[in-house]
């Protein structure tokens, strides 16, 4: 069996650009929610002086994350802002003093066992850096370590344009393996699989060279078929296992971790500097000089792009992440987040959505869906308000990778319909459950 996918253009223009550090911006805006889960609680107030790496946001609940200051300076504002997802989020604005003084809190963590490793990872504030932003320590909080057969390291980087993971492997390959060492030692993992798409020859060579010094690390070279880096797709293509609907990779014996996340952990264990800066690919048709940059978290997109060389033409669309799953931001005042791996600015030609026409029933959508869903039938069930059909069609399986919309000759917004259909399905299921409970009484 083979999973479907698409041959999206690669556009890895920046694969050879070693990341450069941008000048420290005058101000940074750090949202309290850059992860999946509950937003963090701010622990600083207006007027406070903060230093680089100082804790400014405390996790609220289990699935949450710590947040640290990315600059040294003065807190000028702690208030609500509308995020790019349209939700109100508390943000801390810090005016930089340009000194970048490291906080006294920063010191290498003492890790002696699995518990202290988890504590360290939690304290580092790291979240899934591939884009999802799921708190990494939650992922590592495995109750039964026996269940972990392999750690799958996601280095597929299947989105067009983005090369920040490629640069991690090229420039910080040693740290990837330091991360592996830690997991081997404290999590007792016996097998590591690094999954890389075959369009990253240099990174593959580097990983293979480093892997040859170990016995338990395999480098899986995967075809460049989008969405190779989807969690379920990657586990299937490296381990041959299907993660059931509603289950986690752990249920089939896998822990999937992004390569940059792992390299960060390797780095953190050495010097204890929390997640305060990020390597970001700046590219797109509106960008003058596509390149990789390292920017403090909270830098506004406007500052970031200016520091990276500015625009070639006026941008019409700016994305967090790649063009297949990236989020179009409402303005360039939005800050760089923990899980931002690319900022793509598109000119008018690239940005303009094409006109939607009638479905011609070609079946390209269902013949390209990695999970074999039928977006055409889902759209119909959605329009007709049939929750029961949506349940049968398993729309909740959809990972919104965008293959269906990409191949649709009529440019139908199939991902959008799927997203809406998921909401409708959830409402239907809640209603059904409530009705069942009522009858039960």
């Amino acid at each position: 069996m083979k999973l479907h996918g698409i041959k999206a253009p690669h556009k890895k223009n920046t694969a050879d650009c070693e990341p450069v550090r941008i000048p420290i911006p005058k101000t940074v805006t750090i949202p309290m929610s850059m992860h999946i889960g509950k937003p963090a609680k701010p622990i600083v107030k207006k007027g406070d002086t903060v230093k680089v790496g100082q804790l400014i946001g405390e996790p609220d609940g289990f699935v949450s994350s710590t947040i640290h200051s990315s600059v040294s300076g003065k807190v000028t504002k702690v208030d609500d802002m509308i995020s790019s997802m349209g939700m109100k989020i508390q943000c801390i604005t810090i005016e930089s003093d340009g000194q970048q003084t490291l906080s006294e809190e920063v010191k290498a963590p003492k890790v002696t066992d699995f518990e202290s490793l988890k504590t360290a990872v939690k304290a580092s504030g790291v979240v899934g850096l591939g884009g999802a932003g799921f708190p990494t320590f939650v992922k590592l909080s495995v109750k039964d370590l026996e269940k972990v057969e392999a750690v799958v390291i996601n280095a597929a980087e299947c989105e067009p344009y983005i090369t920040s993971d490629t640069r991690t492997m090229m420039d910080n390959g040693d740290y990837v393996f330091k991360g592996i060492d830690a997991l081997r030692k404290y999590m007792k993992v016996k097998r590591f699989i690094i999954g890389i798409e075959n369009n990253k020859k240099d990174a593959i060579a580097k990983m293979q060279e480093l892997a040859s010094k170990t016995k338990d690390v395999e480098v899986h070279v995967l075809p460049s078929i989008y969405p190779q880096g989807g969690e379920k797709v990657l586990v299937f293509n490296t381990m041959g296992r299907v993660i059931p609907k509603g289950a986690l990779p752990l249920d089939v014996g896998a822990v999937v971790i992004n390569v940059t996340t792992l390299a960060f952990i390797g780095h953190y264990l050495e010097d204890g500097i929390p997640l305060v800066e990020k390597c970001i690919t700046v590219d797109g048709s509106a960008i003058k000089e596509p390149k990789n940059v390292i920017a403090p978290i909270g830098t506004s997109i406007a500052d970031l792009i200016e520091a990276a060389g500015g625009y070639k033409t006026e941008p019409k669309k700016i994305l967090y992440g790649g063009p297949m799953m990236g989020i179009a931001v409402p303005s360039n005042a939005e800050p760089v987040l923990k899980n931002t791996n690319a900022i793509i600015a598109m000119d008018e030609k690239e940005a303009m959505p094409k006109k939607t026409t009638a479905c011609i029933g070609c079946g390209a959508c269902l013949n390209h869906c990695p999970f074999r869903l039928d977006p055409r039938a889902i759209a119909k069930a959605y329009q007709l308000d049939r929750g029961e059909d949506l349940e049968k069609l398993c729309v909740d399986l959809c990972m919104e990778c965008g293959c269906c919309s990409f191949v649709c000759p009529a440019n139908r917004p199939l991902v959008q319909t799927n997203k809406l259909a998921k909401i409708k399905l959830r409402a239907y299921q809640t209603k059904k459950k409530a009705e069942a409970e009522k009858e039960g009484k």
Partner: protein
Amino acid sequence: MAKLISNVSPHFSGKRTTQNIMLDVIIALMPAAVASVIIFGLRALVVEVVCVATCVASEFLFEKLCKRDCTVFDLSAVVTGLLLAFNLPVSIPIWQAVIGSIAAIIVVKQLFGGIGQNFANPAITARIIMLVAFAGSMSNWSKPVDWSRSVYGADAVSGATPLAAAAKGQTEFMPDYLTLFLGHHGGCLGETCALAIILGGLYLLVRGIISWHTPVAFIATVALMSLICGKDVLYQLLSGGLLLGAFFMATDYATTPSTKWGKIVFGIGCGLVTILIRFWGNLPEGVSYSILLMNILTPYISKLTQQKPLTGGVKV
């Protein structure tokens, strides 16, 4: 800074559009169009132009009248016109071709909601309407044109189609394989030249516009059944509208199943009905009827052959 566009991902789309799919189909039909003119004379070109023009015009006017979005630029009406012309004899009166084209676009396509919504193939259904309405002129098979005598073609000389000759056992009218392959015999405009149709079909396959499942299942079923029934297999494959139907009409997107297995079932069904009509029916040819019948069954086939979402069984 000017306002940014903010829409749902993906922000990239593939190169394929409805228009360039239809353009590819038109390109694939070109060898057969050229062959039809060489075989039947310039009147073949006249019939093709009339059908295409009428189809495009009726689509345009109907959509204007109903205040629908104009879809003539997606070129699907051109494809319908060409396919309908390919299914007509060269001697067809022009007014009949016009009526057929109007029926294809307005009755079969637009009344059901336009492109993608029709349940039956417009060209095939229109041909069947014409077979019933104009039985005489629809079975008046001109012999191939003799270019030394006339360039227009469509003279009164009538000849039987290879399938009719075979059905009646008139061996003297049955052409040899090479003649069949090159299409130099009586029949519908675009269906006689097997070589041209295969070329076009291969183009569609290479371009990924159609998949191999339907044509292979269709043709293989006809071949196998002919063999079982003790008929001349190659003769059955090369004559009639089988190849045109298998490559161009049984692969129509809107009216056939989308999944791999659906396409295979559809092709086998078409093959079986074709054989039933050819060997046991009253008509010499049954490709059009077989495709129409299977078009009607498409929703059921689609339902039965739906691909299973990759749920990985029940939740563990």
